């Protein structure tokens, strides 16, 4: 045991693991640890201890392994990886998938189970790699360079893998209607997270009313299609444009404020939009909302069972397929996937342009920026407007997917959730937002029955994150350019 922990600070390790366990315990107890059961006397909550226990054990082992990895020790992670892999692989190999794995892999869907298998494998891989590196110790600088290069490769590979998997998912055997639908929702929030990340993560402006721009986008499509009959593809850029102009109109008076004041005013603006939507009955339909919003078509081919009146073809008849509602769901999924990836690509690009650098500089030191001849108001307005534009895109997609929108969908909670996604993922981290959106949106979708407790869990998690990991789950900011590998030029 002492050999295993050689070179590690035991107290620090303990604190690290205990912290992780506590968070996991609270999170899993609230999100997945309770189950609503119908009994003879009515509904009652039943705890699911085994799932909580399982999560706690996995996280405890995993966090100890990660801690050891960070501290440059490889024995513990290796052992943990082997144990976990053995635990998970034995039932897999013996073929008792359903009965034995039911406890070890409690997730209700296959992809999550595969993820649970993948993580220990990943740890194992890292451990092996580190073991290899320490077996033949190279010069310190060279070793550091090698590690950072593999780290970069891994994160790049992971991103690419995720994108490929996302594209392949609907046509893969796991692509059920329900799952694709849930992933569509997750993708909407990933896109919103990426959009808000431009405002909060890059420019450092705390926006608590982001949902207002989402609402503007959704209502602009709904109203344009209702009053003028314009199609989704025409309205999509318009919705972005409207949302961006709302962002700029709001931003103009507001961006002179800083920090808390800005947050309060944006919060107020979010509510104002909602209240206007509720009360302007003649125009927006008020609390009744707007229904019958047309779905997007595939280059003019609608997803319907029967050809539209007046002739023309449907998607199914054009491609000689039999009609299946799954086509439409998969199509919507691809639309939001492309929109979200566009958002990501745009953010990555703009970070390397002068305006993106100006945002980061502004977040660091506004006075210095002013001394360099930057007009802070314009720079902030650009961030606000661009962030709002992506919310507008996402909003119009949301309206098209739902077919019905009402002010109910644009309450403050939504802003809070989107902000949580950004903060939890690590401000400014693109990949982190994907993970936190999957956790915060995906998991609760699977456990809908516990909706009432969700905000409680969010609040707790936010507080704990602020205490233990104030920079988020995946906190990493690469310089926008790297001229030579780390370790050189010393």
């Amino acid at each position: 045991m002492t050999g295993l922990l050689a070179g590690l600070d035991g107290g620090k390790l303990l604190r690290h693991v205990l912290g992780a366990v506590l968070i996991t315990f609270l999170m899993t107890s609230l999100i997945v640890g309770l189950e609503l059961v119908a009994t003879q006397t009515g509904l009652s909550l039943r705890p699911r201890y085994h799932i909580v226990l399982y999560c706690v054990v996995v996280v405890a082992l995993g966090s100890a392994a990660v801690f050891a990895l960070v501290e440059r020790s490889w024995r513990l992670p290796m052992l943990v990886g082997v144990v976990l892999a053995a635990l998970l692989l034995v039932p897999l190999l013996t073929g008792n998938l359903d009965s034995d794995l039911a406890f070890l892999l409690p997730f209700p869907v296959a992809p999550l189970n595969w993820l649970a298998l993948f993580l220990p494998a990943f740890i194992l891989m890292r451990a092996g790699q580190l073991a290899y590196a320490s077996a033949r110790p190279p010069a310190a600088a060279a070793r550091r360079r090698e590690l950072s290069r593999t780290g970069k490769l891994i994160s790049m590979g992971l991103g690419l893998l995720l994108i490929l998997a996302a594209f392949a998912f609907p046509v893969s055997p796991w692509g059920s209607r329900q799952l694709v639908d849930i992933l569509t929702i997750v993708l909407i929030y990933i896109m919103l997270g990426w959009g808000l990340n431009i405002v909060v993560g890059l420019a450092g402006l705390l926006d608590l009313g982001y949902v207002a721009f989402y609402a503007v986008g959704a209502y602009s499509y709904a109203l344009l299609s209702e009053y003028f009959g314009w199609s989704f593809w025409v309205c999509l850029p318009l919705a972005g444009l409207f949302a961006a102009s709302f962002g700029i109109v709001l931003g103009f008076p507001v961006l002179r404020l800083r920090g808390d004041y800005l947050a309060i005013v944006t919060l107020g603006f979010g509510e104002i939009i909602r209240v206007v939507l509720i009360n302007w009955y003649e125009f927006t339909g008020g609390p009744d909302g707007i229904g019958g919003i047309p779905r997007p078509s595939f280059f003019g081919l609608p997803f319907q069972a029967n050809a539209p009146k007046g002739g023309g073809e449907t998607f199914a008849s054009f491609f000689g397929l039999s009609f299946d509602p799954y086509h439409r769901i998969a199509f919507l999924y691809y639309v939001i996937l492309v929109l979200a990836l566009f958002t990501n690509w745009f953010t990555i690009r703009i970070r390397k342009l002068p305006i993106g650098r100006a945002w980061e500089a502004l977040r660091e030191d506004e006075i210095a920026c002013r001394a360099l001849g930057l007009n802070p108001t314009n720079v902030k307005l650009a961030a606000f407007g661009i962030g709002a534009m992506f919310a507008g895109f996402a909003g119009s997609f949301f309206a098209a997917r739902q077919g019905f929108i009402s002010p109910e969908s644009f309450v403050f909670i939504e802003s809070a959730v989107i902000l949580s996604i950004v903060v939890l993922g690590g401000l400014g981290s693109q990949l982190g937002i994907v993970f936190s959106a999957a956790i915060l949106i995906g998991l609760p979708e699977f456990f809908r029955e516990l909706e009432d407790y969700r905000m409680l869990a969010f609040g707790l998690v936010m507080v704990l994150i602020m205490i233990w990991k104030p920079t988020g789950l995946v906190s990493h900011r690469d310089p926008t350019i790297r001229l030579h590998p780390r370790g050189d030029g010393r």
Partner: protein
Amino acid sequence: MLVIEGIHAFYGRIEALKGVSLEVKQGEIVTLIGANGAGKSTLLMTICGQPRGQGGRIVLEGTDITAMSTHQIMRRGIAQSPEGRRVFPRMTVYENLQMGAINVDPAHFEGDIQRCFELFPILERRRGQRAGTLSGGEQQMLAIARAMMARPRLLLLDEPSLGLAPLIVRQIFSVIRELNQQGVTVLLVEQNAFHALKLAHRAYVLVNGQITMTGTGRQLLADPEVRRAYLEGGH
């Protein structure tokens, strides 16, 4: 090049500058010395429009800039290395320099950055490093280099020697002289009166928001009152 006439500046109700007049001619190094709280930094900030000067006029190359906003002023061939350096700590040296050139035609960028690296070779070696991890002296060099990336004709330097080792101070002052010889006009605010006066063509002494004395650097160095107030016990 820069003419200030009877300018007043206020922080709330406190009058920090009480009718300051000062002139910087083309090609000069002008030094402004004074004790803590005399208003030296305030004067530099007032030139940049924050706080806004009142009562008098600030004229830069024939244009009245008193009423302009900061970002407009800073685009008229003037750059500042602010007090406390204020580099962007989480951005790399290279990114900091890119920020300095944000309002400059990108065609100049490569040449300008090479010139900065010639002045401060250490910055070239540190170009991929985050500015927050640099030493104090390196940060000061970066702050000056960043200001130079804006291609200023007039460079405002606020206490570039603050908190630095004597060797580094000497290095920085020699770079200032070199920049001046390349044609940059310099207005230097300093507490390190000895070095600053030796470097200056002309100098002003600021006390409680008012100019009390002016002359060539040599004259002020020799002046008994200046010696007593700013140099005795010093270097």
